[in-house]
């Protein structure tokens, strides 16, 4: 198993390299420099050239790239043009918000998807199953932003059950219990929206896995042993169907991050996705570069995590 994990890690290295190269090229093509924030219209052109030289922007591209990667490794992406603070500080704040939102989403996601998928599979072709199929069909077909808007319109504006913007009520004192409750309260609607959209893949997968597993020979063996029906489900069918789902966790993370751009924008939730969109709007390139890099890294990490979990839960991979 360790061999698989280490090999998987090694595969990640060239992927990271290509990713960083891609982003570096994009960054180079963006108007402006890492020190754009320090320039004002009154700055002397000679001074700019001096700054360019000083910052090594006239060096060959590979030297610049090496330096850029070196900085990136230390979390150094320059300063934000709009906020006039270090990019790392800015992202750090927002990242925590996104992290908590994603965590709540993941909890809701599995809490909804696993029972629905498993039960739909067990009671295949029942009314319950048909309901689940309908639910997953609709949430598959509906685009993220449409669902988000409709939920926001009804639960936020019409019924006013949930707040429509922000991550916390500004009147609450940080650290107090009310503060945390307010935080969770603000996360519920965006997390739920995101979770509903994420459940589709898991429900469909689990349902077909369970349905297929029912006619597997090993289930027949278990029945032939005289194992009670409930135990056949819990020990053989559900376990065998759920283990691969565990490996979805990594991809779920990737998926949640991708969706967070829409969700955070619509619910005006101050996370990384919203920061990304506002940075694009204000052409705050150093922040954009850092965010793309971070997202790419997290996505790679997610797929790595999935592969590792898979190799842990499946003995066919575990024992080589």
């Amino acid at each position, binding site marked *: 198993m360790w061999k698989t994990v280490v090999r998987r890690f090694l595969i990640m290295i060239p992927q990271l390299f290509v990713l960083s190269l891609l982003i570096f090229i*994009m960054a180079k093509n963006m108007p402006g420099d890492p020190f754009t924030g320090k320039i004002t219209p009154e700055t002397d052109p000679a001074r700019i050239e001096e700054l360019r030289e000083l910052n090594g922007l006239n060096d060959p591209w590979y030297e610049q790239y090496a330096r850029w990667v070196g900085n990136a490794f230390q979390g150094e992406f320059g300063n934000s043009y709009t906020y006039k603070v270090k990019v790392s500080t800015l992202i750090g704040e927002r990242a925590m918000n996104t992290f908590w939102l994603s965590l709540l989403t993941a909890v809701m996601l599995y809490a909804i998807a696993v029972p629905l998928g498993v039960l739909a599979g067990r009671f295949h072709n029942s009314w319950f199953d048909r309901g689940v199929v309908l639910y997953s069909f609709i949430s598959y077909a509906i685009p993220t932003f449409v669902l988000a808007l409709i939920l926001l319109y009804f639960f936020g504006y019409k019924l006013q059950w949930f707040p429509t913007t922000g991550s916390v009520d500004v009147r609450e004192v940080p650290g107090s219990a009310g503060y945390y409750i307010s935080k969770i309260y603000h996360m519920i609607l965006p997390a739920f929206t995101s979770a509903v959209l994420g459940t589709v893949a898991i429900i469909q997968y689990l349902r077909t896995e369970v349905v297929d597993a029912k006619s597997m020979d090993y289930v027949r063996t278990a029945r032939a042993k005289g194992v009670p029906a409930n135990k056949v489900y819990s020990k053989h069918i559900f376990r065998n169907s759920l283990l691969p789902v565990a490996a979805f966790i990594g991809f779920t993370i990737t998926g949640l991050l991708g969706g967070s751009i829409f969700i955070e924008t619509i619910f005006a939730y101050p996370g990384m996705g919203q920061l990304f969109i506002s940075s694009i709007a204000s052409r705050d390139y150093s922040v954009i570069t850092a965010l793309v890099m971070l*997202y790419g890294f997290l996505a790679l990490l997610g797929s790595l995590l999935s592969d590792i979990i898979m190799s842990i839960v499946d003995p066919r991979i575990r024992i080589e």
Partner: protein
Amino acid sequence: MVKEKDNKKEQEIISAPPTGMQVVWREFIKDRVAMFSLIIMVLAISGVFIASLFFDPAEVMKVSLRSKYAPPSSLHWLGADIGGSDVFGQLIIGAKNSLLIAIAITLITGTVGIFIGLACGYFGGWIDNMFMRIIDFFITLPSLMIIIVFITIVPKYTVFTFILIVSLFGWTSIARLVRSKALSESRRDYVNASKTLGTNDFVIIFKEVMPNISSILIVEATLSFAGNIGIETGLTFLGFGLPPSTPSLGTLVAYANNPLVMSTYWWVWLPAALFILILMLSINYVGQALRRAADAKQRLG
């Protein structure tokens, strides 16, 4: 038992291939919801194209401050937006643009994906290895963000660059699916038989393998068409879609970013959102019904 059932059905249809369009159509007639979705889909799409003939984009987009946020009336069927422009007209023209762009993206990603997928699945070896590495990499990329960045840094941004940028990230999933189907199909003995009978690879790929996965290709094209409508409108919604001169369904929905419009002037954004929803539901249902029909195991019988 399933086999027995098939035998009976085969008796009725004289000499039709097991997954021909005829069979698919018969399945469709049996599934009322699918038929209903198909009708909705055809009506919505053809309705948009026909209605768009009666709207002059310049006329529709004309600013008329007097009718700012006018509620629905006989003059403005769906009211007017902040500039007093007719929402219904924008809806029709926007929908036409959205549909055309989604079709273009589907055609490009479909063609590229099918070619690469077939080549990978049939030949295997280093061709497969190379493309699979590329596809794996693409799939882990935060593609939405990169598309947005691309869109903002492309110097001369037009509808065509938009289509190309989105297509650049869209072909991988189709290629992956076609590859897996082509792979299992290529392992079947009829492909081996054709090889031993002196048929060349090119002919085998396009005349033997492709027809056998054609039903899956149609299904995927349908579903990815729906997906592409979602991607285009979504990006436009965020403000990174079509150039401002070309309205899209997403442009209308984007008005909802303004809390006042969202809560009060619902007629500006809600019809477009609902139209997208109906379009997506019907196209997706048609796609899934096609998938059921193409798969002998899932046929309704």
